[in-house]
């Protein structure tokens, strides 16, 4: 079973524990995605700008520690509003890849193009981002 832990500063409830629960639930429901979990290494930072809440996921090839705030020098940084963060979790996965050609996917692309969703690392770490999107997707 993948090891997912909350750092001591993370309280029950709130974005950090919600995202950890989403990933845990997904891995239980979709065991094939464990390969993506095991392959991930490094820090991913998420910022819900409207809620003024941020967090970092520290992946270490089969384990994950979830922190409040920014930790280290994340290779991927995602900044947007709370609703869009949950839209990211609703991206469909088809043929093992995130699928952007439906209303949810187009909505995400539109927000990227209009600057409402900012992703640092989109170009430099596409494989890592794809794996993370799959881990986050509840679809």
């Amino acid at each position: 079973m993948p090891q997912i832990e909350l750092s001591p500063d993370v309280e029950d409830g709130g974005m950090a524990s919600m995202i950890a629960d989403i990933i845990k639930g997904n891995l239980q429901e979709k065991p094939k995605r464990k390969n993506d979990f095991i392959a991930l290494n490094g820090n991913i930072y998420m910022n819900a700008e409207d809620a003024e809440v941020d967090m970092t996921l520290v992946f270490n090839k089969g384990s994950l520690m979830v922190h409040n705030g920014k930790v280290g020098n994340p290779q991927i940084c995602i900044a947007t509003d709370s609703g869009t963060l949950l839209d990211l979790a609703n991206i469909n996965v088809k043929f093992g890849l995130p699928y952007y050609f439906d209303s949810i996917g187009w909505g995400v692309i539109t927000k990227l193009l209009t600057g409402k969703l900012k992703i640092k690392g989109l170009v430099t770490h596409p494989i890592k981002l794809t794996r993370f999107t799959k881990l986050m997707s509840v679809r």
Partner: protein
Amino acid sequence: MPYTHGTQEWEEAYTAVTKKRMDSEKKPYIYFMPEWVGAWEEFLKADPVYKSVALPDWKGAVVLHVLKNADYGVEQDIYVYLDLLANQVRSIRIVPSDYGKSGAFVITGTIERWMAVGKKELDVVKGMMQGKLKLKGNLPAIVRAIKPAVRLVDAAAEVGGLMPDAWTPEIIESIKETIKNMAAEFNIN
């Protein structure tokens, strides 16, 4: 003897009390009292927005858990249980705590937080991200249904209601009395 929750008698008596209070109480109804819950149920049953965003395969109750706060006359936690199936709101009831806790998704907040939601000062998703509202249940399932879930709560704001910041000492006394009577009659403890 209180009615036993889950029986036909409980349901009939609860419905009768709600209807009587909806007829007799002045509008706007007091937030989270049975008449207000009844108005919310009527609103959602006819709500085209909810029907349009609800998932056709949805099964499971959403529960709003209001933490007790004696300053507002709410001397015990309140569990408002939304019985949902596909795109239908079957019923909304104030239920016994044991039953409320068993809901598939329980969103917990203080009365002040729920008031902020009711006044559209706090967005539900933002509130959950900030930990102001706490969600229990299968996260992937509720995230799949985030749009209908948000609509359910947003509709509560559209129903309106007399919010806690407008409650006078007389209203607070009446709330205490109502909760006490509901607990005695419907086993809502």
